[in-house]
């Protein structure tokens, strides 16, 4: 797209943001109930959908079709205008959609992609109590019985499971095969009999983590994604790239919302008349963060472009995840520090806000979890060392 077209698109996105982002959403979404949060998220998703902004990264035939450059512009404008984030639909529009597009059958795509646009919510059912970093050791079983699988087991850390309609499920279909060879990838209706969801409260008092207990849950064989027993490969192929793709929005938000607020915070005159921005240490800290954010944004853009061209390397997504998560932590740390005491007493984070919400103390705590899910930093470093740098595998590790 020519630069002038892109600028035209930016103007259009900006006009849309000005007209459609509710000015008071931050106030109205503080302390809302779960039900209100879900209904606000669903309504906001439909607003974006009407404009063609809900799934810009999907193929055109399914309702997306924006170029990488347009997506970046859109994410920049949404962040700059402080749009609510699509928290609830995150797994649906990214992980579920990319799995269906890459490995699903035509029937599965027709069944679910339009439904996701209509508000169908997905959750990832991967981790288990004994299978965190070592995901391939998962024990949930799916036993073939005629045209169906019968599933038993327990999933953990399923964010948002309480509101999910469908689940991306990894389960063991061959208990005798080596652990990565006997796993299958299934689409599970969360309303199936035998599915029991229990929320877990986390350190900041929120309940978005869930446990999912599965007792003789019947899943029709038509809901298998990819070949039976090849679920591990399907998950690796569809999700490692996706892990990086989701960062495009997050990195633009970090630069255009989080960092901007940090600068505004530092620019404000304090009661003693001084501005933090005039302090050389603060300037230094901000400059270091801005440099790193610029690096992150370039990494994300490069990853997405190479992914679309089919030339992404095996470790790029890991580099992006590792860098984003640690940068987010440094930035929230700095934010909590510069806001000082006020950060201790500003403890209301609106629903629908991003990882940087402006409630710095809560954002600081929230940022700590980022180096753990979706492949802990230790796992990302192992991937980079082994697959990227060609280092030998750690000795005596049973895989």
């Amino acid at each position, binding site marked *: 797209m020519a630069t002038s077209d892109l600028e035209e698109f930016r103007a259009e996105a900006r006009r849309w943001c000005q007209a459609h982002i509710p000015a008071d959403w931050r106030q109205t979404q503080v302390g809302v109930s779960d039900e209100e949060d879900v209904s606000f998220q669903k309504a906001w998703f439909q607003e974006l959908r009407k404009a063609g902004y809900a799934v810009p990264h999907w193929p055109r035939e399914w309702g997306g079709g924006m170029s990488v450059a347009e997506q970046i512009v859109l994410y920049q404008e949404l962040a700059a205008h402080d749009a609510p984030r699509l928290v609830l639909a995150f797994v649906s529009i990214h992980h579920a959609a990319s799995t269906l597009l890459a490995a699903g059958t035509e029937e599965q795509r027709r069944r679910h992609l339009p439904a996701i646009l209509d508000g169908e919510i997905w959750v990832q059912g991967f*981790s288990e109590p*004994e*299978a*965190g*970093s*070592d995901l391939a*050791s998962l024990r949930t079983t799916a036993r073939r019985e005629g045209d169906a699988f019968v599933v038993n087991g327990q999933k*953990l*850390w399923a964010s948002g499971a309480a509101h999910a309609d469908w689940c991306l499920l990894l389960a063991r279909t061959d208990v005798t095969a080596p652990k990565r060879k006997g796993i299958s990838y299934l689409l599970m209706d969360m309303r199936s009999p035998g599915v029991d969801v229990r929320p*877990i*409260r*986390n*350190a*900041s*008092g929120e309940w978005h*983590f869930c446990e999912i207990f599965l007792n003789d849950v019947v899943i029709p064989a038509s809901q298998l994604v990819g070949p039976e027993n090849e679920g591990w490969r399907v998950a690796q192929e569809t999700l490692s790239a996706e892990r990086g793709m989701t960062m495009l929005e997050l990195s633009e938000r970090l630069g255009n919302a989080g960092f901007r607020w940090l600068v505004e915070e530092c620019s404000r005159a*304090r*009661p*003693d008349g001084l501005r933090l921005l005039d302090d050389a*240490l603060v300037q230094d800290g901000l400059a270091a963060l801005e440099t790193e954010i610029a690096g992150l944004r370039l990494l994300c853009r490069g990853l997405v472009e190479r992914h679309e061209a089919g030339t992404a390397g095996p470790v790029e997504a890991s580099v992006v995840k590792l860098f984003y998560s640690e940068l987010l932590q440094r930035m929230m*740390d700095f934010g*909590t*520090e*510069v806001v*000082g*005491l*006020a*950060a*201790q*007493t500003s*403890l*209301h984070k609106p629903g629908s806000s991003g990882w940087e919400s402006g409630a710095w*103390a*809560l954002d600081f*705590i929230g940022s*700590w*979890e980022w*180096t*753990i*899910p979706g492949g*802990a*930093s*230790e796992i990302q*470093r*192992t991937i980079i060392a082994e697959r990227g740098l060609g280092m030998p595998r*750690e000795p*005596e*590790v*049973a*895989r």
Partner: protein
Amino acid sequence: MNIDLSEEALEFGRLAKRALEAAGGDELAQIAEREPDRRESLVGPVLAELGAWQLDPRDSADELEAAAALCRSAGYWAVSYPVAERLCRPSDLDADGLVVVADPAPAAAVGGLDRRWAAVTLDGRRSMATARPMAASPRRSAFVVELDLESVDDAGASDVPLGLVLPCWTLLGMLDRAVELARSYVREREQFGQPLATFQGVQFQLTEAEVERVGLEELAKYALWSIEAGRHEALDDALALRLAAVEAAERVLRVAHQLHGAIGFCDETVLSWVSRQSVPLRRLPLGLSGTRAELTRRLGRRGLTGIFG
């Protein structure tokens, strides 16, 4: 010069640790959060029975060291009670405790307690402090409330080192616990067919946390000795300790959380409680950069005197 705590002080610390364990141990923080009204009754009487409130850390080295050991034990159980702050109470004001505060918005983790508080700023201005009602649930506020100050005098210079150092001993106790919890977790938790502790990448993270903790312990003993010895650099030493404590807490707790994985953020793990209770200690009265700025301002280009004079 001997910066180690006396055997009596260490024994008092051990006694306190056992008494707090018998009173509920890890559950003390959980109950206090659930039932904020019991914050006082959960811990106050246990410590009274131990004779904690008869200790006057300003009176003798023995009592100062016993107070430090007590704070460390309270930190170990992450009790949500201002033990250090109560031990610092000034003798000449009608107050049950003392908190060091920073302008312009004084605050302290004293919410929900029916106690009289004195406050002192880093430059020694003393006030009587009235705690405002808790604006958020203890889950989120960790009992931090804003304080309204009523000025008393400028005679608090000698209160400041004590008021900074004892809470660092509480924080040290929390880091003792965090390292212990992380160590036992990685020895038990198996992934890839073996305990996490067998991975050198995990061992190195834990050893770095331990090095931080041990270094902080030495500095804590030194800053305490500096107060005992009545050195006029005691405030510099206290600020240096505070800076080290805040930095060490950040590194140790990050490692402990990272090694625990997601479970470390859940109520089921003690680490989650310890790290949340640590936040007010790390942020008040000054966080990392505020402490560093204050120390730099005081030292100028002179540097710390240190143990070798």
